[in-house]
């Protein structure tokens, strides 16, 4: 008997195929998630993970094959159907209504009460009981829009439990969390497994898969490569399975450090209330140097980057690029001074999702381009410029005239980074360079950043991935509560030296 039909299989896929035009997203996928296990699905962008999950939620229908629940084929017409079978999903972009309180979000669609009047006491009792079980403390009266990201995520999980789900699908749940928050989430997931819940965990962070999952299924180009016990494989071997080839980590070579490019002294940015978002930060970056910025999310990284590119006006302090004081000037002035900027908010700030590849590729360069042709933007010139960036940074796309929203996250990021580096800025500000990018894409982006440094570029890089900061940076500045806790040199940089600074312990 194939495992998918076994009574110990909670959720399965039996030969599921799904194609979109000429793209085969799922190609005969067989999967069996056993009752009570944490089952990870790993794969590159475009490996077919999301399509499979959409099918498990009834948001998409397979062209061939069956979804199996408890050994029986089912057909989901939507998430509500899946939920009725006890299967719920926590999406990457959380499904909470911002204008409702956390408690209201919890009960939405299954409100306790009679005659249409909500029994608010019963709702709160149940909410507190669920939070206790999960070992978390939540302010249920807070609006979801004001709640922290990890709290929102917890509420989504609790909502599925409230609705009676015993099988949870989590799509890249740690992409938005800081390391300590990841630990809390994993603790909760382990506790749920203890209670007999089944968890399907999608990730491309292999370290987390190794730490959390019982079994892992590797998808590549829409096919299942293997399903294997996590205990019987190591992380490098798993990475090789995911990519299908060995990924060479980019080589970081010594390079000559030049003149000071960016000099920041006593830079402050006002925050909400009395506490400044950035509090008298001083540092400098030289040509050929990468300065990493470490810190738990929300400790001044955004304010620092925003003030360096001119999006936020510093309340005090000085920032000079090539000895030109830029504090208080406009974004255009900052860019004209030779600063490139890759925003952490790719979809909101970095790119215009509805605009075409060409339009995005020339964004910020429209004036010089137009100046070449008496004020006209010549389509040929624009396309040529876009093509240069796309070729150099290997952006896989379906046409220069297609909207950027159609690109995968990794390709969007490559286009954005390519656009900014291609202007040859003397200083590059980059936040979360590889968020939501798969392993191969991460290696490519790291290679580009190192090559830019080799050419004498200066980089200020914010990342929530400590590994990434340690691998690339020459020095790492740690922020906590908007203050610089210290700058750690490359030789001394490790999780052990950085973590205490991130939570505010003074440098030894």
């Amino acid at each position: 008997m194939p495992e998918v039909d076994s009574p110990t299989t909670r959720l399965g896929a039996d030969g599921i195929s799904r194609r979109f035009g000429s793209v085969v997203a799922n190609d005969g996928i067989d999967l069996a998630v056993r009752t009570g296990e944490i089952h990870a699905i790993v794969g590159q962008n475009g490996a077919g993970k999301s399509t499979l999950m959409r099918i498990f939620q009834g948001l998409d229908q397979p062209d061939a094959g069956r979804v199996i629940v408890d050994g029986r084929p089912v057909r989901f017409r939507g998430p509500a159907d899946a939920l009725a079978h006890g299967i719920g999903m926590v999406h990457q972009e959380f499904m909470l209504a911002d204008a409702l309180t956390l408690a209201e979000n919890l009960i939405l669609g299954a409100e306790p009460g009679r005659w249409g009047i909500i029994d608010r006491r019963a709702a709160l009792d149940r909410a507190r009981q669920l939070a206790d079980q999960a070992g978390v403390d939540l302010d249920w009266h807070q609006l979801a829009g004001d709640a922290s990201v990890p709290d929102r995520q917890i509420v989504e999980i609790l909502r599925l439990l409230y609705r009676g789900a015993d099988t949870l699908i989590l799509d890249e749940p740690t992409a938005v969390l800081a390391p300590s928050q990841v630990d809390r989430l994993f603790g909760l997931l382990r506790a749920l497994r203890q209670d007999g819940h089944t968890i399907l965990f999608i990730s491309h962070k292999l370290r987390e898969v190794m730490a959390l999952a019982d079994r892992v299924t590797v998808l590549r180009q829409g096919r299942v490569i293997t399903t294997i016990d996590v205990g019987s494989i190591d992380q490098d071997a798993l990475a090789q399975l995911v990519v299908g080839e060995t990924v060479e980590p980019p080589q970081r070579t010594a390079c000559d450090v030049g003149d000071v490019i960016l000099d920041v002294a006593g830079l402050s940015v006002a925050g909400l209330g009395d506490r400044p978002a950035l509090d008298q930060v001083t540092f400098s970056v030289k040509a050929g140097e990468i300065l990493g910025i470490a810190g738990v999310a929300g400790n001044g990284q955004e304010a620092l980057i925003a003030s360096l590119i001119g999006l936020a006006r510093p309340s005090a302090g000085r920032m000079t690029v090539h000895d030109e004081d830029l504090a208080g000037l406009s974004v255009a002035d900052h860019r004209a001074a030779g600063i490139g900027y890759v925003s952490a908010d790719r979809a909101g700030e970095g790119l215009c999702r509805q605009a075409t590849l060409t339009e995005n590729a020339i964004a910020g360069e429209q004036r010089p381009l137009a100046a070449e042709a008496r004020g006209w933007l010549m389509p040929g010139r624009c396309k040529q410029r876009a093509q240069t960036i796309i070729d150099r940074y290997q952006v896989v796309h379906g046409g220069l005239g297609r909207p950027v929203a159609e690109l995968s996250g990794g390709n969007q990021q490559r286009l954005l980074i390519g656009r900014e580096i291609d202007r040859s800025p003397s200083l590059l500000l980059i936040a979360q360079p590889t968020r939501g990018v798969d392993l191969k894409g991460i290696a490519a982006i790291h290679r580009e950043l190192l090559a830019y440094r080799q050419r004498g570029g200066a980089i200020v890089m914010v990342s929530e991935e400590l590994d990434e900061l340690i691998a690339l940076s020459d020095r790492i500045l740690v922020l906590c509560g908007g203050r610089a806790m210290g700058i750690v040199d490359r030789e001394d940089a490790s999780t052990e030296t950085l973590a205490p600074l991130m939570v505010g312990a003074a440098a030894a």
Partner: protein
Amino acid sequence: MLDNVLHAAILATTPILLAALGGLINRQAGIVNIGLEAMMLSGALAALIAAHVSGSWEVGLLAAAVAGLISAAPLSILVTRFGANEIVAGLGLNVLIAGLIGYLLSDFYGVSGTLRLMPVPTLPRIDLPFIAGVPVLGAILSGKDVLTWAAWILVPLTALLLTRTRIGLRLRACGSSPATANSVGLSVPNLRDGATLAAGALAGLGGAALSLGLVGLFSEGLTGGRGFIALAAFYFGRNRPWPTAFACILFGFFDAAQIRLQGGGLPPELVQVLPYAVVILALTLASWRRRRGPSPEP
């Protein structure tokens, strides 16, 4: 003098308040109802005709609610089922209803612009003994028609509906995040249709407050942009019933004051602009205040 203006202001508020409460529910469910004006207009006409034919204002009110509901239906269906843009569809509805009414008046009644039907039972006003004689309080409470009382009772009821009931919670979820509502198994189109129909019925009653309550006739310009003032009121009140009601009474007050001021030597056309100028001022102030207020963290 003050008593007169207060009395007139409360009565002038009623049509705006009814439409604004409907629009507020609609907005909470995620649809900006630009068609309130049309729904008021059809309600006003239906109320007059039905009250005249039946000889009863109750039937008139019923007809107004039904007429508002019927004119809301195409808007809702276009938006929720066919993905039409709510602004364009709402504007289209306003033009369509105005055109249909013009045709109706000329073809069935042979009049253009204004329809007078005699006799027509207007809304009875409830005089409160004892209180009527008290200054200010009497002007506010006494001598008001049933719709005015209904409108003000609906303010707390709407607040309760939105916060304490299942349907209210679901409507707000639709407005705040349709994807969320959908993912927990709610039908966003159905809920939004319900909200739009309710808005239509309330706006229709608002129209009746004009034709049966205030003037006792119908004219094509009877609503005079009050549907849009209602829109401004719930924007100003940020979709919350009490602040919205406050905005309505503000606009109602200037509407009443405008009529008083017309004898004062100023050009009447200029004075008539007053309530609308107040609307623009109020909205500018509201968004200015909002922008200055603490914004949630990004």
